[in-house]
């Protein structure tokens, strides 16, 4: 074969692409320590949290301040039948609705309102009982009951804060004393462990941040990349293979993160395990794509590390769902992915119901994937 120059030069772009994917995985496999950090540490975090019972509730005022909330309202007050003068329950609802960062959605009954929480349209709802006005005007205590989404860790304090603020204003306006009106709370979903509450965040954060970290070094840290680009492999294949390999790697990580709670801590997933697992590709894809894009902008590995830090802060602070004010979560993948996890894993709904939270992640990942591709095509690096 050597002397004859007879080796076939048939091309198979798909085989080449999978070789590139294998090469990327082999590079990661060759660094066992890095692999352990990617795989084992998040799993240890899950174990640690799983072994912890729910700790005492800390003040969440700081976290809830200024956050926009969408609250459902069911008004069962019998005085609604008499519109003149305006019933007190309607006045209370108006006060609540006029509070800053509050959006109200009216429902006819608790069943409808419940559905809205189930499908993530609201984070909870309040029910104004039928004796609201009668009780207040006759000096009897009256209650507003609210139900919050237990899968959204801030739902209860957020609604409680707003309901309470509205009650205070209402009392000042009408001169009622503190005992006349108060509220009861109830959670719509059963929270049985700290792991149950934290798993969506751990899973999303791990996959997204770890993907971002790997992605940030993917181009700038791949020294022979431009030598590979001098072969028939296209830049499209180079970027796609990196994104595919890193996403696949994180799917293994996701399997661990989902499997440990299931097998070790009796976690109950209402949804289909395979679908839950497959959807874990979304945060990984988003993190990896953003990282690869950053990496195409960087000229040194140090810049890649710094880009990771910036990206991580942006994703975590603006996208984790914990520290955000305003409407930024719409474009950040982590908020959506936690919601997807809640919808599919905990509520047992399907992809159709989760679609409004899935497509923003596809768009986010897709945009940065294309941007990375364009950047690599524009780069004129020579070896």
């Amino acid at each position, binding site marked *: *074969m*050597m*002397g004859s*120059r007879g*080796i*076939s*030069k*048939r*091309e*198979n*772009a798909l*085989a*080449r692409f999978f*070789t*590139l994917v294998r*090469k990327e995985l*082999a*590079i990661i496999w*060759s*660094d066992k320590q890095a692999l352990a950090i990617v795989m084992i540490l998040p799993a240890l975090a899950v174990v640690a949290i799983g072994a912890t019972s729910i700790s005492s509730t800390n003040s969440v005022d700081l976290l809830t301040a200024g956050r926009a909330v969408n609250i459902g309202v069911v008004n069962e007050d019998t005085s609604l039948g008499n519109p003149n003068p305006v019933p007190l329950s309607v006045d209370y609802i108006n006060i609540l609705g006029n509070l800053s960062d509050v959006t109200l959605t009216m429902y006819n009954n608790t069943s409808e309102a419940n559905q809205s929480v189930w499908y993530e349209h609201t984070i909870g709802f309040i029910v104004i009982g039928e004796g609201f006005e009668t009780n207040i005007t006759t000096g009897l205590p009256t209650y507003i009951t609210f139900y919050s989404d237990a899968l959204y860790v801030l739902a209860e304090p957020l609604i409680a804060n707003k309901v309470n603020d509205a009650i205070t204003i209402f009392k000042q306006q009408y001169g009622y004393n503190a005992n006349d009106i108060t509220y009861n709370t109830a959670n719509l979903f059963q929270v049985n462990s700290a792991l149950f509450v934290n798993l969506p965040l751990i899973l999303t954060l791990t996959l997204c941040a770890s993907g971002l970290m790997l992605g940030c070094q993917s181009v700038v840290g791949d*020294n*022979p990349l*431009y*030598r*590979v680009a*001098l*072969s*028939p*492999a296209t830049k499209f294949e180079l970027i796609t293979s990196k994104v595919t390999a890193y996403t696949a790697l994180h799917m293994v990580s996701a399997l661990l993160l989902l499997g440990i709670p299931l097998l070790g801590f009796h976690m109950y997933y209402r949804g289909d395990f395979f679908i839950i697992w497959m959807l874990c590709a979304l945060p990984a894809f988003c993190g990896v794509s953003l990282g690869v894009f950053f990496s195409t902008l960087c000229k040194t590995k140090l810049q890649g590390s710094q880009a990771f830090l910036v990206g991580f802060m942006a994703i975590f602070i603006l996208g984790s769902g914990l520290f955000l004010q305003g409407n930024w979560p719409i474009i950040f993948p982590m908020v959506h992915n936690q919601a997807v996890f809640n919808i599919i894993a905990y509520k047992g709904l399907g992809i159709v119901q989760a679609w409004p939270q899935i497509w923003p992640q596809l768009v986010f990942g897709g945009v940065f994937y294309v941007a990375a591709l364009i950047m690599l095509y524009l780069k004129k690096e*020579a*070896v």
Partner: protein
Amino acid sequence: MSGEDEIVDVGNGTACTVEPAAQLPQTPQRRIIDVNNITVRVKKLKQPIVKNATFFSNEGEILGIIGETGAGKTTILRCLTGQMKPATGTVVVAGIDVIHHRRDAIKRFGYVPQLELVSIYDQFSAIQNVYYFGKMYLSGVPDDAIRTRARELLFILGFKEDLMLKHVAAMSGGEKKRVSIAVGMIHNPDVLLLDEPTTGLDVSLRIQILNYLKNLNKKLGISVVIVSHDLEIAQYCNRIVLLDGGRIIEFGDPEVLISTFLPCDGRAIKLEVTELSEEVLETFTQVPEIKYVIKSGRNDVKIFAENIDREMISKAIEVCDMVGIGVKSITLDRADFTSYYRIRAKLEKERVKKEESAKKELT
């Protein structure tokens, strides 16, 4: 080419005659490299970094592109690989126009960059590196066939089985370079392009690498282009392109270049004297019969003259007597490429200097 003399424009308004090398076959040969009148510009500089470069190489030959740092060697190599586009001219590699059909051309040449860091993966073994790169080119070929070819190539390049499996990170510079060469060869290219293959290696490794290249050239019949500032490569080359300041100052068979440029077919008198100084060298140049003088060792001097005979030897001894130094030995020598290059490059620099001062005077 077909064995006839060819007049080649060397880009400086002069022309040099390139005679076919004696050892080259006389049958018509395919041009594996054909660079015609390329000029390369970059945005930051007013002057082109390569000017009107024209040269070629036939199938099965080793072509050396030699010049100092900044002469334009790597630029020319990048034009050959399609990484840079010349402003004017054509670049044909293995019959394919690189400027317009780069993706086709890529499959026809193998490339060995200067630095192994950007050429092969440290994390992989030699065989893994060659295999992965092989799969890029030979994606339709079964894995086993690529691995077999990788082993054969590495074997030719002096790798034993255990070394093939060793991680590149743990290899010496010479071993890494050979892995890089194997990577460039895996797809059986028509021509192998090497950027400074001997840089950073000690003398014995430099020779070793060049011998391996010669071996590949002989055993597989592959054409080779070596870009280097290392003059040692000349003795391995069938043709040489000499670059200076982005211009080709000479192009041809190195033996022919030496014998046609230097007087008396490149023969020289080599004197070993007791103490050699700049003044002594200057005194030699004053002798009308002596054309060039170069220092070839600590106390060695090589004298090139129109006639190398007894009379010339006597004159050389007279000069030594005149300046008060003793002569330890006298030998008749032939110019090697290093001697030729030093004289040729010096003359070129003097010519450029004269041109520049003439221009200044005019302005």
